[in-house]
């Protein structure tokens, strides 16, 4: 295979899905290493034939699995969007109480803002403004998974715990449930990937890679952080500054 690109050593898994060792001997798929991985937003995790959809059973089953995961995420996201969730987390975890306070004030803010018609701040909590097109969600999820399937991401989430993350400074995973144009979304993904590269392991170093949790699943923190993602609030002067703990999802 041709020489590895600058970024190939940062990818945790090879093209065929198997975990890479730090000394990358994954030479059977020539394509993986010559690609400039940071600026590609591939439709799938493996080389796709020009005919489009993969017809091999292995890929079909993986797609099926991802589709189900996306649907599950969507249901959770919709569920979490309703106010009952706030009561729920309040009861099970006192840590969330401060988030509830923020969300409480945000709800009031949002209601006042309904007439502003700002197209940028789509509220993913409202079912109507959510992206629900399965094909779009699948594509976006693949792009996100591709970015999370990197050593950089693993190092980032270990190094910067959620409550320490500052908006603008630390990369934040784009929210696939929000409505964005294709261009806008692809741009966000690119910027996110570029920011993540700051956590790339130094080239040529040998390191024991320990896996983080299931990166495909949306964990509870991510869901709550999606709730908190109100860019209008972050920029607005009305935001109670002491309470804007913008613990962004990575």
């Amino acid at each position, binding site marked *: 295979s041709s020489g590895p690109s600058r970024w190939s050593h940062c990818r945790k898994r090879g093209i065929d899905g*198997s*975990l890479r060792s730090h000394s990358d001997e994954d030479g059977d798929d020539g394509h993986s290493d010559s690609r400039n991985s940071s600026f590609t937003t591939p439709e799938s995790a493996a080389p796709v034939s020009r005919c489009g959809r993969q017809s091999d*059973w*292995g890929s079909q*089953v993986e797609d*099926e*699995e991802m589709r189900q995961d996306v649907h599950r995420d969507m249901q959770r996201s919709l569920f979490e969007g309703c106010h009952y969730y706030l009561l729920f987390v309040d009861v099970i975890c006192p840590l969330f109480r401060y988030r509830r306070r923020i969300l409480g004030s945000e709800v009031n803010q949002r209601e006042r803002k309904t007439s502003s018609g700002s197209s940028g701040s789509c509220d993913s909590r409202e079912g109507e403004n959510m992206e629900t097109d399965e094909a779009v969600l699948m594509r976006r999820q693949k792009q996100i998974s591709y970015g999370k399937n990197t050593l950089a991401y693993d190092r980032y989430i270990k190094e910067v715990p959620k409550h320490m993350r500052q908006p603008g400074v630390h990369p934040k995973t784009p929210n696939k449930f929000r409505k964005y144009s294709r261009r806008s979304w692809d741009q966000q993904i690119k910027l996110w990937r570029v920011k993540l590269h700051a956590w790339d392991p130094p080239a040529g170093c040998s390191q024991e890679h320990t896996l983080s949790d299931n990166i*495909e699943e949306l964990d509870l923190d991510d869901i709550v952080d999606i709730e908190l993602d109100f860019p209008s609030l972050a920029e607005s002067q009305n935001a109670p500054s002491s309470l804007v703990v913008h613990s962004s999802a990575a």
Partner: protein
Amino acid sequence: MENCSEDYRIQSFDVDTQKLLKTALKDPSSVNLEKVSNILVDQSLKDSLFSKEAGRICYTIVQAEAKQNNGTVFRRHLLNRLQQEFKEREETRKRSLQGWVSYVTFICNIFDYLKVNNMPMVALVLPVYDCLMRLAQPDALLNEEEVDCLVLQLHRIGEQLEKVNSQRMDELFFLLRDGFLLQEGLTSMARLLLLEVLEFRAGGWMLSSTAHKYYYSEIAD
């Protein structure tokens, strides 16, 4: 998880292969999973007894790999091998009836064990139906081996298959009725098997107790 090798019937393999398989069950990322999947598929195509429960060891390896590192390498290789063999099934059938029957047994067993979020794998549904339809063709019904395989699979996975695609199940049973009624040269055992499976499905994928008595009781001489 302690699983004795007897559960997976790996005694038919040589010692080194048994060791490899045991390692694959415990520590999948440390072995060549493509090689392991080929070993299991090859054996299933040869050994009809093995193919009957080969799904179980495959399932365990899939789970182990998913748990260990979220990997799907083994599953992917397994499925693509299955697909390859599926494409060549007609040649396989011509070459070796036993090999063909073993293949069908194996793919049905995989369908049974390997689920995605507790649902059958959509990618396998039509191929499984294609295999069963092939077994219901007139030339196949003449072979008791094939009829036996067909009814066995319907007993094991018929209900699940019908849930995911009832239309094709209807089509299959049209063939079975025709075969039972019209096919010349069927052995009486073949006809008995077909009649039983017709009743089995008609009874909602179970036999009434009287029917069970008819088909499965010992007959006093």
